[in-house]
């Protein structure tokens, strides 16, 4: 019922979304990658950290992506790793978007001293070299899991979102229809929920996609320098081990290339979707067909 009303209201936009080539291409790649992450782990008999008996073997029918120096099956490692990398991206992205939207919105809507203080905080976070901070925090925590890693990423990557959302709120708040709503006696709560928030939804979706991709990339960087999850596997961890044990020099391309390729494909598909969304949702870039 609610969904029907939203569909009705945005029918034109939905048609454009479905027609946009970039969105189609990006979403298809993303769908395949997500399917691998969800279904993959059920299609393998080995655990990601289970000794298989075969050491450093190239791809074969038994081991589709070969095995590494420790005898782990790389197909299992990649599908489990992909799953956890995407989980980190989702959790970190949601957290960063939520904090950024909340701070940006409060700052922009209420203004005054609240705005000054929140923006001071945002600016401080913005100039802290994030990766250095991530390294320090990650190094202090002894047992790091996926949850901790995504929380650390979420807590450090919200500032640009806060600034962008604040600017967006400021411009919406001073739009004349908001003034008219106030003069029509509408309570503040429903002005925010019914007049301002719906106008920001498409923007927030795009911000989330960027944060999702950003969190995956940050997680890979952390994993790669050895500050990833202490237990378990992720795409970054596979890459880190591949480099540590000279996979490329030893000619074990099946160890290094598949996880790197997956990361690149995943981030590219997100970027392409975002560009497509921008074309459809930004009236100045909107084009037919």
């Amino acid at each position, binding site marked *: 019922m609610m969904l029907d009303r939203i569909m009705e209201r945005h029918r034109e936009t939905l048609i454009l979304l479905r027609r946009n080539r970039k969105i189609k291409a990006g979403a298809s790649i993303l769908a395949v990658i997500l399917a691998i992450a969800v279904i993959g782990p059920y299609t393998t008999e080995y655990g990601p950290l289970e000794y298989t008996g075969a050491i450093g073997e190239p791809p074969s029918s038994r081991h589709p992506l070969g095995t590494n120096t420790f005898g782990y099956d790389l197909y299992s490692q990649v599908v489990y790793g992909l799953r956890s990398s995407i989980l980190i991206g989702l959790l970190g992205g949601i957290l960063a978007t939520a904090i950024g939207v909340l701070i940006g919105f409060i700052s922009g809507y209420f203004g005054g001293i609240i705005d000054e203080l929140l923006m001071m905080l945002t600016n401080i976070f913005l100039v802290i070299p994030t990766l250095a901070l991530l390294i320090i925090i990650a190094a202090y925590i002894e047992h790091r899991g996926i949850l901790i890693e995504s929380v650390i990423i979420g807590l450090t990557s919200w500032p640009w979102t806060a600034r962008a959302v604040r600017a967006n709120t400021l411009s919406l708040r001073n739009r004349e229809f908001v*003034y*008219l*709503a106030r*003069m*029509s006696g509408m309570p503040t709560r429903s002005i925010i929920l019914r*007049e301002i928030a719906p106008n920001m939804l498409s923007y927030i979706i795009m911000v989330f996609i960027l944060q999702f991709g950003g969190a995956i990339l940050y997680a890979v960087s952390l994993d790669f320098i050895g500050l990833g999850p202490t237990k378990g596997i992720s795409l970054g961890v596979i890459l880190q081990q591949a480099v540590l044990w000279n996979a490329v020099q030893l000619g074990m391309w099946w160890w290094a290339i598949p996880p790197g390729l997956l990361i690149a494909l995943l981030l590219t598909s997100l970027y392409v979707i975002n560009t497509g969304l921008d074309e459809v949702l930004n009236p100045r870039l909107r084009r037919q067909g």
Partner: protein
Amino acid sequence: MVAQALLEVRNLVKVFKSGMMGREIVAVDRVSFNIEEGEILSLLGESGSGKTTIARMILRLLKPTSGDILYKGRNIWKLKGRELIEYYRQVQGVFQDPYSSFNPIHKVDRPLLQALKNLQGIEGSEALKIIRETLRKVGLNPDEVLGKYPHQLSGGQLQRVSIARALLVNPKLLVVDEPVSMLDASTRIDVLNIFADLRDNEGVSILMIGHDISLSYYISDRIIILYKGSIMEEGETDAVLGSPLHPYTKMLIESIPRIEEKWGRKSRIRLDVDQKPTAMSGCKFLDRCPHAFNMCTRKPNLIRKDNRKIACWLYKNNYNQDIA
């Protein structure tokens, strides 16, 4: 007891600050005036003169830095809850840009229904009846606009819907901020006539903000000339525009292009916008005034002179009578 003005603006000041330690911009500088019942008062000024800021403060959308706005003798910033609803039932506004006056994601019916529901407590079929009636009053066919989204209507239609929204609650005072500046020349007079009819038939007071002297001349009873946040000249429309006294008013009137005269021949007057910060202590018009003299480094007060009020040292003690 002296008859009370409908709305009284006393020593209104608005200072905008940029950032915590940023520089201050004085948008409105000690402005006082009254709006009487059943009159159309024009507030004229160029961009940056603070006219829109004054309108927003009267509509209680922007808090003044200092000074009071009294509606029927009550300070509008002390109103709360039901009193505030009552204020908006009597004082309504229309803005300049019809396109940004409507939320692109809602049908245009929504702001109309909201105004009736929140301010009058009227809903359902009765609300719809009032809405259709009011739309007809502003020259719209209700069937053509109801149920449409803003992008499906023209600017002229939207502006009329916006005016209808303000009229739904039968306000006593209407603050209209450049209501026709974004409309075609052909529809402007129609919209202005709506306001004139409201004054004549229903005794509504109207504060009209604008920059177009000819439109103000056409419709208003009194005129206030604003420059950089201060009142330069105030009085009956015929007096101020017919025989302007203030050098700024004269300059404005000379700058109106006339249909029977070609431009080139006449000595061109300079109306360039200066970038220099004006000394806060002196007359705001000092650096553009052709008659500036040493007194002008002090701020002139708004004084009564014949049939108007004027803030200019030329008329303080009848200096330089020949210039006037």
